[in-house]
């Protein structure tokens, strides 16, 4: 560990060797594409690029794949903001405020703020990685079944309570997502459930057609009905620089959300979705005035983007240090270790520390380079918001159907796309939040798996005997109490202004 400064520098220098840099750039451009097209993701991108990495030395293979993986969360914001459809699952929270901003003609501002938040978030992660590397391992080892279960609960409750106007509706929808997640193999018994003997459902309902159906179909129908454009107002001038300024003004929020994202990345199994929701939740709860969240508050874009960008360098640590991948794409990366002849585990932090830091640097550099490229492209991209509905809607719908079928290439994808498109339209117009369904689907499996493991292993004592569990319980309680208290204060304030108090009402 005493060689950390040398390894940090060596990793940085390695990144600037010609072949490494060239492959990283190819990866970055590919990653921008995979993030931009809804239905594709970092995971599918890794699967497609992996054959090209094989045969390359580690200092080329990793920058190539990580360059791709790190940038998907930069460009997945573009469809999330411009057409209200998350480019990957990790941009769900961004839709909540990004899309309303686009409708107000502030798409450029939202995108610029998100790019810079991603850059700064990944830098925060790199600093934490370097500074705390020697002491992070005990923290990661502290996470076992009870902690995973509680983190899944926290993510669910955050999404349920923040993604709409009503807590009850949000939690109901999260519950609906949990039910959907139960289709397919039960993690603790191995028996398939609710699959109706249809092999398509044996692994559960795939997320991609659900996300695209639920978000794209309602927007396309509304666009066609309105016969107008996505943005109802003209693009505000200076939006790009305003977004940059927003990110700098909210630097402390980025540091905090970057830290949240890094920690979520380091805990194997949590992943970007929990990171972005904890980031978004923190932004709402820590804001003095949270009334504009969900209506186009730029902090609602900055916070989740900083958290998801930071989660990626964070995910490198358990992969290299323990050989336990922090998330799905890191599991593929772990395979690359073996293919290129590196051994994941503690020796990666001794003999190959420079490669470890090269990986961290690549995630930071990829974010910066992708942001610059996207920054240059966005002037043209935001014009999507001003294309007439009759032209844009069929194109978007076509893209979404293709995107939906990319996951399994099964007719079931089209069917699910239609079913969830219909449901999404109803939910949208009945003002039932759609995002908690998705997080319920994603975290349902984690929650179910670890609930069974936890109860079987610890009985019920884990509820009061484990410090991290207690901290999460407090966070969950606060996530209910703080918004309720704020609402009470605001209503009381409004009543005082209108001439009578809550006490008067009671009397």
């Amino acid at each position: 560990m005493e060689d950390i400064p040398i390894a940090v520098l060596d990793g940085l220098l390695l990144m600037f060797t010609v072949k490494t840099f060239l492959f990283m750039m190819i990866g970055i451009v590919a990653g921008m594409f995979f993030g931009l097209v809804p239905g594709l993701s970092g995971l599918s991108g890794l699967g497609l690029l992996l054959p090209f990495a094989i045969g390359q030395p580690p200092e080329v293979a990793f920058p190539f794949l990580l360059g791709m993986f790190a940038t998907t969360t930069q460009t997945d914001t573009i469809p999330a903001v411009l057409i209200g459809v998350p480019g990957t699952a990790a941009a769900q929270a961004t839709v909540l405020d990004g899309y309303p901003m686009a409708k107000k003609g502030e798409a450029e501002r939202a995108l610029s703020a998100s790019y810079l938040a991603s850059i700064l978030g990944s830098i925060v992660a790199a600093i934490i990685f370097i500074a705390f590397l020697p002491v992070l391992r005990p923290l990661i080892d502290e996470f076992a079944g009870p902690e995973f279960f509680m983190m899944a609960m926290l993510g669910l409750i955050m999404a349920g309570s923040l993604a709409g106007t009503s807590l009850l509706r949000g939690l109901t929808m999260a519950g609906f997502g949990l039910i959907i997640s139960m289709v397919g193999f039960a993690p603790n018994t191995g028996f398939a459930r609710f699959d109706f003997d249809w092999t398509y459902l044996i692994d559960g309902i795939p997320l991609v057609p659900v996300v695209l159906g639920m978000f794209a179909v309602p927007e396309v129908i509304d666009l066609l009905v309105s016969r107008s454009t996505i943005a109802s107002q003209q693009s505000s001038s200076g939006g790009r620089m305003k977004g940059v300024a927003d990110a700098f003004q909210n630097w402390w929020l980025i540091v905090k959300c970057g830290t949240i994202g890094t920690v979520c990345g380091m805990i194997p199994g949590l992943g970007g979705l929990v990171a972005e929701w904890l980031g978004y939740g923190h932004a709402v709860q820590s804001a003095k005035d949270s009334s504009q969240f969900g209506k186009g508050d730029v902090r609602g874009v900055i916070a989740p983007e900083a958290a998801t960008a930071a989660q990626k360098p964070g995910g490198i640590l358990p992969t290299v240090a323990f050989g336990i991948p922090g998330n799905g794409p890191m599991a593929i990366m772990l395979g690359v270790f073996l293919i290129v002849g590196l051994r994941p585990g503690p020796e990666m932090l001794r003999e190959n520390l420079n490669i470890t830091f090269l990986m961290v640097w690549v995630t930071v550099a990829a974010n910066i380079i992708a942001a610059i490229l996207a920054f240059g492209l966005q002037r043209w991209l935001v014009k999507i918001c001003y294309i007439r509905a009759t032209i844009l809607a069929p194109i978007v719908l076509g893209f979404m159907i293709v995107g939906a079928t990319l996951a399994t290439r099964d007719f079931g994808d089209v069917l699910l796309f239609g079913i969830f498109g219909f449901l999404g339209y109803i939910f949208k117009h009945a003002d039932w939040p759609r995002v908690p369904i998705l997080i319920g689907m994603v975290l349902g499996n984690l929650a179910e798996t670890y609930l069974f493991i936890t109860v079987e292993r610890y009985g019920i004592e884990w509820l009061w005997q484990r410090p991290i569990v207690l901290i999460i319980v407090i966070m969950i309680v606060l996530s209910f109490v703080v918004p309720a208290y704020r609402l009470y204060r605001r209503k009381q304030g409004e009543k005082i202004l209108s001439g009578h108090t809550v006490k008067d009402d009671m009397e």
Partner: protein
Amino acid sequence: MFRFLSGLGGILLAVSLLVSPAIAEVNFAGKTVRILINFGVGSSTDVMTRQFAPFVGQYLPGNPTVIVEAKPGGRGTLGTAYMYKNVKPDGMTLGGLTIIVARMATAKVPVDITKFVQVGARGGAAVVYVRKDSGIKTASDLKSVSQKVIMGATTPRSPSVMQIRLFLNAFGQDKHKLIAGYKGQLGMLKAVRSGEVQMAFMNNGQWMARRDGFTKEGLVHGIMESGQNDASGKVVGSGVKLPTVDATWRKLLPDTIGSDGYKAFSFIQQTRALNYLYVLPPKTPVDYAKAWDKAMASAIKDPGYLALLDKNSAPHPAWTNRDTTTKTLMQIAAKKNDPAITAMIKKISGKK
């Protein structure tokens, strides 16, 4: 008349031989062939196949390029069904089906895998490891240790988990505990690291790649391995230099040899010889199977491939040829109908 008929028969035979694909010349020159695997990108199967694939091409007639395609899902069954139903029987796609024989032996699979055109197989083994602070130094301590050892496992319906549960149950129902549900071997490793469980298993290739790191860290050590069956059916070690579970059972619990539990254990053990089953779609001309068999057998001994394995300290695998694979597979399919084994597997998997 007889002469006419025999002449006609001769002509028909000649025509049928001419059009029969069974005598098609196998030559992949200038072509790209693929190995279709039934687990996802990044899985152990994927890593192993991608390491191996370039060497196979060197030994196939015409030296084609070999690519790897993953068709994951349904714990290996979706890729298997795809191979059976959707892949053309033209010899261009080899199915690399991991753990599907064990699944056939212990549960339902959507297609009859005995109907594939068999190419051959590689064995697969797993290593059981424990935390050093568990008080278990060798496998023998599992019998003498006073406290309960908690073992982490994946799904209870996984053949490996069934096997290890049968072994632990032989010590008595409450002697040790098995908690299932962890996601893959790395999920189990995480649970061991956190101290949630004391014992788990991982495949021998992964174990060998990590063993030195584990030794330096001093957190866990291996106590036994599954081993795999050789052509005569005998359980032999896979090269990780640990006693096999079968040998441990025989040594520690000799009274239970002959029990239904041991019978079911041995039955599942037999499938390990065909852990990685290589097949061509039904109706593929047999010459293609022979060509693939020959190429795989040569590639597995290729000095370049062995050097790659040595770099990761991975054990050298053995190739089971087409004839032995077919014979073993048919034996397993027949034995599946043994009522005692069926009942025990049903019980151990929790099926009502």
